[in-house]
């Protein structure tokens, strides 16, 4: 919590969301309702606040927008604002395809754990740490802490990934 030049107390909230390329920090007045977070992200993301949901990272259900944001609880948590409540995720690997619903606030790591695990492609634990997710048809590994919602723009609510083996640079050029 900090005093601003305007003399009021504010708190910093970490946010991801629809239309945001990466995680950002926003400031809202202490005692604000959760809807203030939605309003701030909607402006950054360029979409209307009506119908937008607010999630906490990796939580499947949105939170009540009327609750008051408590600094001690919000600090360190990453929030996510998106107009889609669920995202239909599909992952491709060696000619096979699996699918599952996730909230937009799910981290890439969470989807990766599912895709590599027993209900996914059952990747050998010896090579599982080398696996990454890339957007379907691409080869660039996505950051594991990123929320999947940043890659989906309403009204779309589908997202396709490829499970790929991460790059291991060595002395010889590829």
């Amino acid at each position, binding site marked *: 919590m900090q005093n601003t030049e305007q003399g009021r107390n504010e708190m910093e909230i*970490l946010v991801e969301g629809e239309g945001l390329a*990466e*995680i*950002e*920090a926003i400031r809202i007045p202490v005692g604000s309702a959760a809807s203030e977070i939605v309003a701030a992200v909607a402006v950054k993301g360029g979409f209307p606040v009506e119908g937008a949901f607010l999630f906490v990272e990796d939580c499947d259900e949105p939170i009540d927008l009327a609750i008051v944001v408590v600094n001690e609880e919000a*600090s*360190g948590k*990453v929030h996510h604002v998106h107009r889609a409540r669920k995202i239909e995720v599909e992952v491709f690997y060696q000619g096979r395809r699996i699918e599952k619903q996730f909230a937009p606030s799910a981290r890439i*790591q969470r989807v*990766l*754990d599912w895709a*590599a*695990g*027993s*209900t996914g492609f*059952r*990747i*050998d*634990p*010896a*090579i*599982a*740490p*080398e*696996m990454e997710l890339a957007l379907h048809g691409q080869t*660039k*590994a996505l*950051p*594991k*802490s990123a929320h999947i919602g940043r890659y989906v723009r309403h009204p779309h609510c589908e997202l396709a990934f490829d499970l790929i083996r*991460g*790059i*291991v*640079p*060595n*002395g*010889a*050029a*590829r």
Partner: protein
Amino acid sequence: MSNLCPAEQAVAADLVSARFRIGMKRGYWREVSYAFPILVISVAAVEPDGNSSEYFFRFELTEFPGTAPDVRIWDSETDALLAFDKRPKGSHRVTEAFKSWGNETVYRPWDRAAGAHGNWTTSYPDLAWNARRDLAFILEDLYGLLTSNVTARSSRQAA
């Protein structure tokens, strides 16, 4: 007017940037010490047995960001290069990144010495250093490597 040299100003700006602070707030890394041009940062890790740990990295930042940082895995107690048997364990990707090699820096394309050999700048553009990168770019890559054992554990527990 600032008495800081351009590289020192660039480092100072990076250390207060949103991307750097967010990494600290999430517990991904923390600043241990800084006296330009040397910055020591601790990065959180997950060991193969699932236990949490951390590793220290020494950044030499002369002419930053035009020149890539020289990054070494560091022993904070002895203030020297971390002994090979104490380095991170995990997949081939992890051991390869922290192996002992000619220049003793972290073996990733964004490192000053590693990036300058093997045509890595053109071979691995997504991981290579350029002047538009920031310290958080390197730290995110290190954090991803050092916590990659999480995926192995998910796979193993599920198997």
